């Protein structure tokens, strides 16, 4: 019985770990940033599951609340903002004093 439990747990562990890794891989490699953010929220939720599995309910609660409830929306908001800006192209004119800046990309 105990052994069976262990096997079931081990299988669950494996599944969880595989899901985590797959999600991470997908969200980092998908060309669509929006999709990546959605996957990130999923990743957070699965992570919360992992915390529960590791008997860390406090962390699980925090992860679920912060990871899915705050970080995700943060990313989405940022994405929206960037999108809107890129549509409007350059909203403001920065040509003045342009040369006064140090070249941004330069090491």
């Amino acid at each position, binding site marked *: 019985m105990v052994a069976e439990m262990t096997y079931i747990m081990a299988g669950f562990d494996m599944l969880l770990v595989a899901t985590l890794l797959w999600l991470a891989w997908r969200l980092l490699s998908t060309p669509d940033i929006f999709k990546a953010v959605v996957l990130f929220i999923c990743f957070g939720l699965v992570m919360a599951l992992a915390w529960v599995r590791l008997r860390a309910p406090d962390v699980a609660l925090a992860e679920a609340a912060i990871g899915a409830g705050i970080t995700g929306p943060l990313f989405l908001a940022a994405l929206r903002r960037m999108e809107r800006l890129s549509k409007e192209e350059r909203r403001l004119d920065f040509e003045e004093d342009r040369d*006064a*800046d*140090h*070249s*941004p990309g*330069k090491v």
Partner: protein
Amino acid sequence: MLIFDADAWIICPIVFPLAASIFFFLSRRTGPVAAPVAALATGVSIIILLRQLLLFGPRHYYIGGWQAPLGITLRFDGPAVLMLAMTGLTGIGITLYARGYFSFRIAAPKRVGRHERQERFFWPLWMMLWAAMNGLFLSSDIFNLYVTMELVSIAAVALAALSGKPASQIAAIRYLLVSFLGSLSYLLGVVFLYKTYGILDLDMLQDIAGAAPGTRVALALITIGLLLKTALFPMHFWLPPAHANALAPVSAILSGLVVKGSFYLLFRFWFEVFSGAISIGALNMLGILGAGAILWGALQAMRQQRLKLLVAYSTVSQLGYLFIAFPLASLEGNMKVWGAVIFMAMAHACAKSAMFMAAGTIYLHIGHDRINELVGIRAYLPVTALAYAIAGVNLMGLPPSGGFIAKWLLLSASFNSMQWWWGVVVMVGSLLASVYVYRVVCQLFIIPEGYTIKKQYPRSHLLEWPAFTLALISLLLGLFAPYPLHILTIGSSNVATIIPGGPP
């Protein structure tokens, strides 16, 4: 039942600026008036700590009353107090300068709202950063160090982006990502340590840490993380744009103080906590990177066309000296090398912040910082020009500056440990430094025939004198070397046994 423990002074350098930060956030308009008071209070508390150290020796302070493995311990000993003194001195100078800086800019008719906003956010951010720096130097708990480091870097990033220039924001986000990466690498190292020993306290780790596989890996991860934050060549790429594009007081903070924090930790980790786990090869590796930093930073500084970038690259170069100390410390007595490192850090903090302040003052007055067009500054900013020159003397390592003492100690350590090649690097570095210092000083001090001052601003003492005072301190530091070196020996565990000076 008021029981005020004398030991509790140790938290004051952390709590004072912390409280000041919150206060400045809540009541916006008090910043300019109250900031010098807060800075002064912090400085006084540091002086009291110093006195306590001299009277009673090193101390531990258990926060919450919980002893080491469970709670968080603060500890103050010679090196920590000297670093605190560094933040105190530089911090007061920067605070005063920042007052002058912002009031000067607000007085200018252009974009008043923006300058006011910058000032109002500057004060709480800077105070928070100061508190975190002090916490960093005092903490003796590896996880607590992570939190303080994050505080430092988030505050530093916010400050770096404060100027609102696009370039500064690009630099800031790069800085944020790099320092976040550094923190994570450090945290991973902490995880390895916790996995191996189940302990977070530095002193306890020092007692039990051996050459276990986990220790080495942890040390490597921690080192990489801290090196990223310290901007050792070739991980320095983020530093020059971030430091050069920030507001002048911010540049002074970043270059003078922030990079020292992570370096201090690195040195402490290597030579106090994990002295059993380090290998000669790794030490030499760091030394080589340091040598690379000295030369590369100096060469880049020589090529720059803009004053602030030049000064920023010189920071890269000067940080290299600190790493030359690593291979030397292994064979030579640690005392000398600790002395060199602390001296270098203190002198550089004063000199570099003075330099950035001077550069900022010049920028404010003439509206640009193109080196080739700086002719004649001495005519109407004599104190600033002199401050820059004196700070330059420090970077060149000429006597009687603190930089000279540091270089002397490094050189003599390199000879005594039969590794004279590091000495050669130090010498070449100072010569290169004199080239890039000279480039600017020469421009500042020429007053060509028929030179007229284009635009006369009202004299601002707060813009000129803090920089000058800091530069002077860095210069005179060399004459009072025995005192810091004496303080250094108090309670730094590896140091006490080594007899100072003399031939081997």
